[in-house]
């Protein structure tokens, strides 16, 4: 029994050796044959690795900024178009709520001493926004309650605006004009001030002014967009329920007056969109694998025809049909695996490049590599099966006659 197993093993080793010889004897043909598999595997690998890296960095940034906050957008009813200052104060009183940070955006012309005149997005924010997100202000002071109450004309600007307006001049204490109105610069924003959900969609803030000032400039007296900071130990589902109850009462139980989004619900939505897109793309990429498989099948069928005499000879020398079949299967398997390995290498290289383009961390996904090998092994066996079977069924006499 042991001897028999050894015999089979050494036969398999010989099959591998002969297959490699055949593959490398026809280098160009083998290369062209595996090109399809190579491209297919590379595409699948690059896709999976890149999407994984992207969704990983996405959920990381959601985790760092999303903990303990809910984002509320108010569309309002006919009677009540948004939240008044009184409503905001009442909201802050809720047990689940530690603070609220309203925001109001506008696009404005800004200039400094007649130097520049550009259109830029100005965001109105509250003091609690700065209190909740440390490290937003690199120099100067943040907006405080007094600024809010007085609708003061003060602003914080980011480094891009600083460079545009104050090249070589210290901006602190200077005056800039937003839609013609003078604002004094009280601070500068740190570069990585992407601390809210909206910043993912809209990019980071360029100019921040008190939200009350922004409301005046927009001629509105109600808040329609705000971030709610939850009290310690309150999970977002409970807080969500409590807020819904409060808002329902506020809008007299009219429907569709507001929406509450938690970071995790936004993340879930984005991740599911991402995985839908990636599986769609993977589906398209796997068409390349099928095409590659057909290429291998075609090449193997040609090989079987070319080597009819060899098959006949081997049969005459005592090779069993399954031994012939195994030999051709091994050959198509190896061919496909060589293509797969090259495809994995190319795919990883490609996704490394893509990750550096998107400046996300590149992670080698073991799962993707196993998938690549699995795919090419399956393609090799599935598409090699028919040619190998054809070879094993050749009648030795007919095969020998073709000598």
């Amino acid at each position: 029994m042991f001897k028999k197993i050894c015999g089979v093993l050494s036969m398999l080793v010989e099959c591998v050796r002969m297959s490699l010889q055949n593959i490398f004897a026809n280098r160009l043909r083998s290369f062209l044959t595996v090109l399809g598999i190579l491209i297919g595997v590379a595409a699948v690998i690059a896709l999976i690795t890149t999407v994984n890296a992207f969704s990983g960095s996405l959920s990381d940034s959601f985790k760092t900024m999303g903990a303990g906050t809910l984002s509320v957008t108010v569309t309002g009813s006919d009677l009540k178009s948004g939240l008044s200052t009184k409503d905001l104060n009442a909201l802050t009183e809720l047990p689940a709520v530690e603070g609220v940070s309203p925001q109001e955006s506008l696009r404005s012309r800004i200039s400094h001493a007649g130097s520049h005149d550009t259109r830029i997005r100005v965001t109105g924010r509250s003091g609690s926004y700065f209190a909740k997100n440390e490290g937003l202000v690199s120099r100067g002071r943040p907006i405080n309650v007094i600024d809010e109450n007085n609708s003061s004309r003060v602003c914080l600007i980011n480094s891009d605006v600083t460079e545009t307006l104050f090249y070589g001049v210290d901006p602190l204490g200077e005056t800039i004009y937003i839609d013609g109105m003078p604002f004094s610069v009280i601070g500068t924003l740190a570069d990585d001030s992407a601390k809210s959900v909206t910043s993912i969609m809209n990019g980071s803030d360029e100019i921040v002014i008190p939200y009350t000032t922004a409301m005046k400039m927009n001629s509105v007296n109600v808040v329609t967009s705000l971030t709610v900071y939850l009290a310690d130990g309150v999970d977002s589902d409970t807080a969500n329920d409590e807020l819904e109850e409060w808002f329902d009462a506020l809008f007299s139980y009219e429907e569709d007056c507001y929406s509450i989004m938690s970071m995790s619900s936004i993340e879930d939505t984005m991740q599911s969109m991402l995985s839908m897109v990636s599986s769609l793309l993977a589906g398209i990429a796997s068409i390349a694998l099928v095409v590659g498989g057909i290429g291998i099948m075609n090449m193997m069928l040609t090989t079987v025809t070319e080597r009819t005499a060899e098959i006949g000879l081997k049969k005459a020398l005592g090779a069993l049909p399954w031994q012939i079949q195994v030999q051709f299967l091994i050959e198509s398997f190896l061919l496909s695996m060589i293509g797969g390995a090259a495809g994995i290498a190319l795919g990883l290289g490609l996704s490394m490049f893509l990750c550096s383009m998107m400046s996300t961390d590149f992670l080698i996904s073991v799962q993707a590599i196993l998938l690549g090998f699995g795919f090419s092994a399956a393609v090799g066996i599935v598409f090699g099966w028919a040619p190998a079977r054809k070879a094993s069924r050749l009648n030795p006499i007919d095969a020998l006659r073709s000598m």
Partner: protein
Amino acid sequence: MTFFRMEKINKFFPMGEEQAHILKDIDLTLEEGDYLSILGPSGSGKTTLMNIIGCLDVASSGRYILNDREIEDLTEAELAHIRSREIGFVFQDSQLLPRLTAQQNVELPLIYAGTSPAERRRRAQAMLERVELSDRMNHFPNQLSGGQQQRVAIARALVGGPSLLLADEPTGALDQKTGRQVMKLFGELNGEGRTVIMITHDTNIARNARRIVHIIDGELTEGGDAADV
């Protein structure tokens, strides 16, 4: 014990609507150590007969017994087993695999028989020594002369230790001188006790055997001793 016996072997091939009768009631008996030539022109059915003797094909009717086994009862796998253990084939054109060395070509039948690599090497080298090619073991077929190639093919036929050496026009692709060398080798191998069956259309070649049978239109007739032809 019966070493080799054919009784009333018939073979038909479908030819359009009709059945072509290729072999007609062949009777043939051999003892171990015999050296037989089957002599016949092309189209006489000698290749079909060789295929049946070599267990590549089975007869349409009749009995064929080789080493006490009824060949017509065997499955394809069992036929393959007999081909690898009992019969050594030598073809007209040496039929070596071009990408394998002489030694690897000789090892080929042993691979399918499941022999261990060390044993394969030992036996292949011994066989190549027997055909006086010990200095050509690692040469590829295209680096060998026609005669040398045919000797490698003979070593390959013998390496499994077959009881029957079956040769189809073994000198057909060789010049006179090399052909004579191969015939000398066959004579020696027979002298060592191996049974040899050689199929040829060449009377001069056939005469090397100790016994000759003629096959004409699928019918076998005893040709007597080689000296009488």
